[in-house]
């Protein structure tokens, strides 16, 4: 049915992307890069949904629609996050998280 590539490869790619995203979220110090790591996580989820839909349940389109909505919501989220990052840049004159640390216990 499908041309060559088995589903495992997609799932391995998605898993790698997911954990790269989590690693980047935790280690990066630039707010924009942290936001990019989150996008990586969401895109790995999209790959998962699409691969499952295409290979296992090709007669229904639920996974496709889910990933469309994830893309749209991720865009909204990024818009608000970038607006707040701009505000942070105005307040702190930096977007390095090490210096945005007024509150700590």
């Amino acid at each position, binding site marked *: 049915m499908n041309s060559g590539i088995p589903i495992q490869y997609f799932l391995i790619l998605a898993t790698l992307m997911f954990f790269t995203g989590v690693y980047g979220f935790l280690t990066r110090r630039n707010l924009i890069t942290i936001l990019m790591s989150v996008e990586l996580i969401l895109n790995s989820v999209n790959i998962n949904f699409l691969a499952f839909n295409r290979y296992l349940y090709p007669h229904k389109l639920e996974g496709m*629609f889910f990933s469309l909505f994830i893309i749209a919501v991720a865009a*909204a989220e990024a818009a608000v996050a970038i607006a707040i990052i701009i505000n*942070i840049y105005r307040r702190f004159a930096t977007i390095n998280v090490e210096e945005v640390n007024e509150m700590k216990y």
Partner: protein
Amino acid sequence: MSLGTFLIMRHELLLIAAALIVLIAEIFWNPDKKSSISLFSIILFGVITIIGFLPSPAGPLFGGMYVSSGTRLLMKNILNIGALIVFIQSVTWLKKEENSEKISEYFLLLISTLVGMNFMISAGHFLIFYIGIELAIIPIAALAAYDRYKNKSAEAGIKLILTSALSSGVMLYGLSMIYGTTGTMYFSEVASLFGNTSLQILGFIFFFAGMAFKISIVPFHLWTADVYEGSPVNITSYLSVISKGAAIFILMIILFKVFPIIMGTWQKTIFVTSVLTMTIGNLFAIRQQNLKRFLAFSSISQAGYILLGLIGGNQLGMASVMYYILVYIFSNLGAFGVVTAISNATGKENIDDYNGLYQTNPKLSLIMTLALFSLAGIPPVAGFFGKFFLFTAAAQQGFYLLVLIAVLNTIVSLFYYLLVVKAMFISKNENPIGSFRSDFSARFAFGICVAGIVVTGFASVIFEAIKNLSFGV
């Protein structure tokens, strides 16, 4: 779409209409009387709250994607009451000079989050659930950064939006695994196709971790204190009561409805997280000096108690969770109301500043004491009955060890709640906070909170009504 459709979706449609009306009204409003928009919005929202209580048809819509039932309507009404109190409390703060330009944004964003929460609670499909949860959290992040000229506010906003984005990602990753193994995202179909395989359990754990971020369950609580401290006080109270309550409601619905097959697994998960949440929330609350951080950790430990109601998976547990959230709304908003009033009048937010408050502001001190007693669970106020039912629900299913740990934690929590009471009544202070008189709106909100704390405790009718409604979701 017939008229019946509109009646079933009444809560959401009315809230969307209210959000649009507030937005449009601002354009045509007299610029010299901007502050009266808040009165207009509150009256509008109050009418919606009352309409929400009218009897309504129930049933599924859109092929089962949207489900309405008596329980879910009750949850929405509870959230509406809480949001109404938050709105009334925020009038004084919105009157300030720096906020006069963005009053309608405040109401627009808060009403949007309520729309998201209502859709989330009514979800019958994970897609609606996901859209609802995002709609409920993204406007809140914008509101946390509402004070544009305060560094802490911007910091709170970015911390909230990034953690919520990460938690959504983790949750969706789990959902994709569940989709891969069952081939559907409808709650009812997932429940019937769930087969207890290891991939499904891994998916569930990812999903639970994502939800735990939203409810701020230990070990996913680290954003809570910072966001609560940095946000404006009214947003903090909204986050700690309404957002948390909605997330707990939907977690309860999904655990009971979608994952009943792996009940043994999620009971273990909840057992561990509940013990951790109660203990760590309490221990960290003891060493806080800022009252907002203090209430943040107290709300973390409250979430730990609420998990006790979920663990049994029985009807009493469900009723007690809803009852406890209702009580928690009144008591936490009472405490936050006092913090808001004092923060508005003097800008002080530390526990030391409250030394000798009883000498200057006896009424505020008494309200704070009543609210803290309710949070700690001292009889005869409502919090005691709430905790009592939660513990009974867990004990009914044989979780005696967990109940014992919870009771011990209640004693620890009593200690730190009483620290604040001691500061207000006993500690001496050379120059305490001056005596001041709150606005009518603040006093009205205090009235609702105090009446709620007392009446929900004594009127057993309320618990009986909730219990009768809470059969199945």
